[in-house]
């Protein structure tokens, strides 16, 4: 007994000493990330990828990786112009159909050559009802794909559909081209985790919840990528992504918490890439429930808060106020300047409220939001401002994003914060949100005139005429205030000082740049 107790105490002490000793040993053996051929590019803010099958992909991080593994028929260049990718050339016919000639000599990761059959298979598969692809709407207008020969094909459309070219790019579209033979061999579930594309990188391992490893595809049609391996860790906490990069564990991140941006801009050891993003943030309201079934109430609320103050407090200045449905980056489609119903004007707001059939505090309004970050702050700033100006008694309801989304899609809400990101075609910002039959029209807005204009715009292939139609849509719809536009946020990437060659695009690109990156 005697020896046992003495021993246990001593050994515990010795054990502690050994632990500290070992910890000390580790320090010298672990060097920071040096230059070389391996890139560690972390996806921050997300911990989950379900699939790398483009037809089944829906989450942003899934596309981050898909963009490295696949190509689309088309792509956006650094100036955001649509250019051929797997297509060598293409021609849009007046009836909406597209003639495509494929590049010669393109091979998939499994060594098989790219043919028209693979394109037909990839696109028509999206329409397969059995698959229930979340990206089916992107090619809903496609009737069938006609194979002319090995390299020539025609995508037949049921009618002119302006967004189709955008939807065929290697962006957040799901229309990336995969190997028909690999898919048939592996089956849907097998393929989902063992993707076979034509892109510059192929998947070598995928550890659920931890990250993925990619390896350069030596036979890539634009030449073998310089960086031979890319590790893509999944870092759920954005703040942890920043500390990981500052600590030398990773080379780049896909996002930065907006609150950290000012500090990081002044840090000479890192590079902050930032630019206005293709996204909109609005207050989603239920037009079928009081008080938001009254147009004057909706307009009053829209005039009762300062959007600029929101940008400063919610995003730490990393964004811009939004007075319409389109982000400024949509160029011709965006209407610059303010308008009377989306400008802060307390007197006008109160006057508008007086015309409403509801008193300020007649109906309780819970603005649903989620988490503890800026989405929550967004709801709080909105509610505080509106309550102060109008004397309403709005409250903030905090839940998680899945619940917030579920409640809005099923109509079980009065108001909530919401927004879309990464969409490139104007139709994605208004078509599904404002059209009576739009499946993202969560507030159930319906205006026959707006519907007619939206359908006309969707079928208009001339960009100028199309832009004019969307201006008309916006001018009409904003008076009804179907959703309350608030702001658009900047997008960010954090890079270590020695990383070069990453070109940031406004739809928040990622994996498509791996092959252009070098580590100095």
């Amino acid at each position, binding site marked *: 007994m005697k020896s046992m107790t003495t021993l246990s105490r001593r050994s515990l002490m010795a054990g*502690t000493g050994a632990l500290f000793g*070992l910890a000390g040993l*580790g320090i010298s053996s672990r060097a920071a990330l040096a230059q070389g051929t391996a890139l560690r590019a972390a996806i921050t803010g997300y911990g*989950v990828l379900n699939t790398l099958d483009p037809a089944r992909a829906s989450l942003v991080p899934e596309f981050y990786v898909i963009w490295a593994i696949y190509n689309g028929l088309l792509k956006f260049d650094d100036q955001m112009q649509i250019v051929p990718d797997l297509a060598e050339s293409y021609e849009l016919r007046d009836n909406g159909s597209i003639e495509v000639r494929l590049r010669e000599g393109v091979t998939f990761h499994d060594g098989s050559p790219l043919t028209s059959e693979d394109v037909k298979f990839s696109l028509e598969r999206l329409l397969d009802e059995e698959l229930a*692809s979340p990206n089916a709407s992107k090619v809903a207008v496609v009737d069938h794909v006609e194979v002319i020969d090995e390299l020539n094909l025609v995508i037949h459309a049921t009618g002119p559909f302006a967004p189709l070219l955008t939807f065929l790019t290697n962006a957040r579209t799901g229309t990336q081209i995969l190997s028909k033979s690999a898919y048939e061999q592996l089956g849907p579930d097998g393929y989902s985790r063992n993707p076979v594309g034509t892109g510059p990188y192929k998947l070598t391992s995928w550890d659920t919840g931890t990250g993925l490893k990619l390896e350069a595809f030596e036979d890539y049609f634009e030449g073998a990528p310089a960086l031979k391996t890319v590790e893509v860790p999944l870092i759920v906490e954005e703040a942890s992504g920043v500390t990981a990069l500052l600590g030398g564990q990773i080379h780049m991140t896909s996002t930065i918490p907006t609150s950290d941006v000012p500090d990081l801009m002044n840090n000479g050891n890192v590079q902050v890439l930032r630019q206005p993003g293709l996204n909109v943030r609005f207050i989603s309201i239920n037009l079928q429930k009081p008080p938001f079934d009254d147009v004057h109430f909706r307009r009053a609320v829209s005039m009762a808060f300062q959007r600029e103050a929101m940008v400063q407090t919610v995003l730490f200045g990393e964004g811009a106020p939004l007075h319409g449905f389109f982000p400024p980056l949509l160029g011709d489609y965006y209407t610059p300047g303010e308008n009377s119903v989306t400008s802060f004007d307390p007197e006008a707001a109160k006057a508008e409220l007086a015309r409403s059939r509801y008193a300020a505090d007649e109906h309780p309004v819970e603005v649903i939001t989620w988490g503890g970050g800026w989405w929550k702050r967004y709801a709080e700033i909105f509610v505080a401002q509106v309550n102060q100006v109008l004397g309403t008694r709005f409250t903030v309801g905090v839940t998680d994003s899945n619940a917030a989304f579920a409640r809005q899609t099923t109509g079980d809400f009065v108001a909530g914060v919401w927004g879309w990101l990464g969409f490139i075609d104007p139709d994605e910002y208004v078509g599904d949100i404002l059209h009576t039959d739009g499946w993202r029209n969560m507030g159930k807005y319906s205006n026959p005139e707006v519907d007619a204009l939206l359908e006309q715009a969707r079928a208009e292939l001339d960009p100028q005429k199309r832009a004019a139609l969307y201006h008309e849509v916006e001018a009409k719809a904003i008076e009804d205030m179907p959703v309350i536009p608030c702001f658009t946020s900047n997008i960010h990437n954090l890079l270590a000082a020695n990383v070069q060659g990453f070109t940031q695009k406004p739809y928040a690109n990622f994996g498509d740049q791996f092959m252009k990156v070098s580590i100095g």
Partner: protein
Amino acid sequence: MSQSDPVSGGSRSLPARERAGYRRLMLLGGKLLSALVLLLVGSLVVFLTIQAAPGSAALSVLGEQATPEAVAAFERRHGLDQPVLVQYLAWLGNALRGDFGVSLSIASGQQISSLMASKLPTTLFLGAYALVLAIAISLVLGIYAARHRGKTGDTVATSISVLGISMPDFWLSYVLIFFFGLSLGWFPTYGYVSPFVDLPGALHAGFLPALAIAAPMAAVFSRTLRAVLLETMTRPYVTAARSFGLKPRFVFVHFIFRNALIPYLTIIGLQIRYILGGVVVVERIFGIPGMGSFMVDGAFLRDLPVLLACTVTFLAIVVLVNTLTDALCSFLDPRRSR
């Protein structure tokens, strides 16, 4: 009846021993049974809670572009359109056969048991590391404080304990990262090294997360240890031992420390469940692919099978640890099992 029977009094020793054995068996059986009931009730509560919560795995998988048709197809494919009780019984039937099913929304289509096979050892390693650190720290602080009662050393040690209890683990994690990772550069700020691949590396990379989990436990342990040591010091048998002229060090080790061990171990056993809570947060911050992150993702993305598997595993661990603590205390103090 037999106990009060004076006639059988002479031959009582044998049946008494049997009775004791029987009682112990009953005790063990009862514990096992209550553990099973606990697991059953726990899984049912989680099942019903998730069913009642708004949101669905379909929305997690199909994302914001989910059309109602796609959501319906997803739910049909995974049997989520069945009545709740039918779903639960189906799950239970498979779970009893050791099949936790496949993940719905955080690793679509993958076997949960194979996912857990890689995640559970990670968390157990981190938990054990944290426990060792907590015990080591508390032995130093607790014994030091008790032996220097009322002096500056005691005040310092006790203040450190209070600090340990008051600091939330997520905040402490970032403080540790900032100080030891970014400023001093001694430890990695993020990431995980498997102990099966590189043990020194794992101890090095795991030090900050383990310390973040260990800090509040170490504080509780050392306060408890200090209190029971001080209490034991005033016991008559300690005074007697001293009066025999035994050396203070000998008295401390054999009379004071040994007797203080039981309440100390009991507290350790009770606190282990908090490791599981700490793990959930700390794994996230340091990017450790363990059960904690797995469970949190499962909850946020409504992956019911994953959540159930994690809950049952955590419950089983808590039950196991409690039983082990009981056994260890019985071993240290044989009076307990009588």
